[in-house]
């Protein structure tokens, strides 16, 4: 027994329980902080106990959903999974999640861990957990005021990857040119995944595309297919750098409205097998493909992957449905221009004709700079007939963005901050009608609080 570790686990668990009893939310930051103060090696010691090792999932978009998908698949395979569920993805949140799933003697109850890591915390998480698998999803401009430039994040990831143990594998979305370049030297240990599909490609590179310039020589890429922002099948006319061959590919992609998606997985030229997921949007194809690729790298068979993905439920704020006062509310978290683009694309392609409420906050966790609203393509909303409401601390900025996207001003209304904005929006909906709510991160927390106070929705940390 390690008394220091045992004390760290005990304090973390007790303080988490106390915070929950006080009704102060999920409570992972403070307990994790206390645990790391008592034993700075806590995460390292706990994670090394796992016979199946750790999988660290990182990327700007989709890490919560992908980590949940992979955890679901592993549970389907009969494993007991340690997982930081509520999106607490800094070292202390992850430490608290481990403590929560350990005995008071500091023994972890689980066989394998699926850890979602924040972009900035990724190097530290990798250093402390020596992961068996690193799963890299994408790198977008997101909250750059916190992290500095994309290049800085990429460089710190590159250093972390070079320091990985020799037996670690890197499962990576090579449709992202930045990630393909970062993992180029890892050839033997890299499992490359991406889309092999022309039908879902965009007509042109969207404005929010971030990394459309070659990291090696500075030339702009040409795309044989652009799928989502800068993700696609690219080639540099300057130095010839191009998307590497795919080890695991998704093809025959079908997006069926807001309800489900399906695609076929092809592994190294063998017979493809189908996957169905009860989630929507091309970004969820990437998430499901990422989870499937990581599961394959862990030796899970296709049948189990299929069953796991079919049983997915939406994560916190990712297309959740709640009913309130006889109306149906669909909640979709938006964090950055690419995410917002995808939601707009999804609403447009499903021909959704329902009132929309977009809630924009600019607190630290949202990113204090709301400039990103102007990197998103809101123009598809210009022709729609439904009203668009905005709210949150920077609701006026969102309304202004929509005005310049040619949404007529008579369809725009600024509702102010939560919880008032929620009540005003719901009273605009007819009984039985569906309304879509698109909040940024802290607006989502405020929305959940407002709903909970009105007796709706369970508290998110219990999900």
């Amino acid at each position, binding site marked *: 027994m390690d008394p220091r570790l045992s004390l760290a686990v005990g304090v973390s668990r007790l303080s988490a329980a106390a915070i929950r009893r006080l009704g102060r939310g999920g409570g992972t930051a403070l307990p994790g902080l206390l645990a790391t103060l008592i034993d700075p090696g806590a995460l390292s010691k706990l994670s090394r106990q796992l016979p199946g090792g750790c999988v660290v999932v990182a990327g700007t978009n989709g890490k919560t959903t992908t980590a949940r998908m992979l955890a679901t698949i592993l549970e389907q395979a009969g494993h007991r999974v340690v997982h930081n569920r509520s999106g607490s993805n800094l070292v202390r949140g992850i430490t608290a999640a481990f403590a929560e799933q350990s005995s008071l003697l500091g023994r972890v109850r689980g066989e394998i861990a699926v850890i979602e890591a924040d972009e900035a915390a990724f190097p530290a998480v990798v250093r402390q957990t020596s992961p068996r698998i690193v799963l890299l999803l994408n790198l977008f401009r997101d909250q750059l005021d916190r992290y500095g430039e994309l290049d800085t994040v990429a460089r710190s990831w590159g250093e972390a990857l070079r320091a990985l143990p020799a037996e670690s594998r890197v499962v990576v979305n090579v449709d992202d040119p930045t990630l393909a370049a970062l993992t180029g030297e890892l050839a033997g240990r890299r499992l490359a995944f991406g889309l092999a599909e022309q039908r879902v490609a965009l007509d042109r590179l969207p*404005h929010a595309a971030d990394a459309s310039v070659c990291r090696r020589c*500075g030339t702009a890429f040409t795309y044989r297919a652009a799928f989502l922002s800068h993700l696609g099948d690219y080639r540099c006319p300057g130095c010839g750098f191009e998307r590497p061959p795919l080890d695991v590919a998704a093809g025959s992609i079908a997006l069926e409205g807001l309800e489900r998606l399906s695609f076929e997985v092809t592994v190294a030229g063998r017979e493809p097998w189908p996957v169905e997921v009860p989630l929507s949007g091309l970004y969820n194809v990437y998430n499901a493909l990422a989870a499937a690729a990581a599961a394959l790298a862990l030796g899970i068979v296709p049948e189990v992957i299929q069953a796991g993905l079919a049983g997915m439920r939406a994560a916190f704020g990712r297309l959740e449905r709640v009913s309130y006062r006889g109306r149906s509310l669909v909640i979709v978290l938006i964090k950055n221009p690419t995410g917002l683009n995808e939601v707009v694309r999804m609403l447009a392609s499903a021909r959704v004709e329902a009132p929309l409420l977009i809630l924009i906050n600019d607190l630290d966790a949202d990113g204090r700079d709301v400039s990103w609203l*102007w990197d998103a393509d809101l123009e598809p909303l210009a022709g729609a007939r439904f009203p668009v409401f905005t709210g949150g601390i*920077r609701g*006026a900025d969102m309304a202004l963005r929509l*005005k310049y996207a040619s949404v007529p*001003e008579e369809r*725009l209304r600024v509702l102010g901050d939560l919880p008032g904005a929620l009540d005003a929006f719901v009273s605009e909906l007819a009984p039985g009608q569906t309304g879509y709510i698109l909040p940024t991160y802290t607006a989502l927390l405020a929305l959940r609080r407002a709903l909970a106070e009105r007796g709706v929705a369970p508290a998110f940390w219990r999900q």
Partner: protein
Amino acid sequence: MELIICWLYGRTMNIYGDRGNVLALAQRCRWRGIEARVIELGVGEPLEPGRCDIFFWGGGQDREQVAAARDLQGPKGETLRREIEEGAPLLAICGGYQLLGHYYRPHRGETLPGLGVFDAWTEAGSRRMIGNVVVESEEFGELVGFENHSGRTFLGPQGRPLGRVRIGWGNNGEDKTEGCRYRNAIGCYLHGPVLPKNPQLADFLIEAALRRRYGEVVLPPLDDTLERLAHSSAVRRAQASR
């Protein structure tokens, strides 16, 4: 009437919503019945003298800034300088602004020569200056934006600031100046983007372009209720966070 908006390095230097400035210029022309065409001019693409009416140049990451600085050494940079000298309206934010001064000196690597349109120079600093900014400008009134830069810009004796910083860091975090003005050119650190929330700046650029191409014009006012609402909420956030 028609105006051509030239977006310099739109593909490589477009960070923190800078593209919103181009949208604002184009829409505020269209709402007044003025045709607006946007052309993007990238690295290696020549600038034809007299073709464009308004120039916009945004910010970018280090690598892209180096490519742009190199691209402007020669006839293209010379043409741009002459256009500005002859009164062409221009807005440059952050990285673009820095390259319109005499030089930009990074931490590592070579000093990047600028066009010297503004009597200003920029040196890489050690801390990143991030946050909401409120600027008092004699010419344009209260301006609001969001800054995010580590470069520190200093104005020479001929460098006239765009305004004085009321809240925020500004050019260098020391002398309370923000941005630089020369003829119809404006350089500054205001992301946000700056034009939608400060429409008087957009209209200044449009009016200067129309005057240059069509002689005396009066720009009809627009309903700026939402612009004012977004402006004042941004000012409130600046007051609350600083």
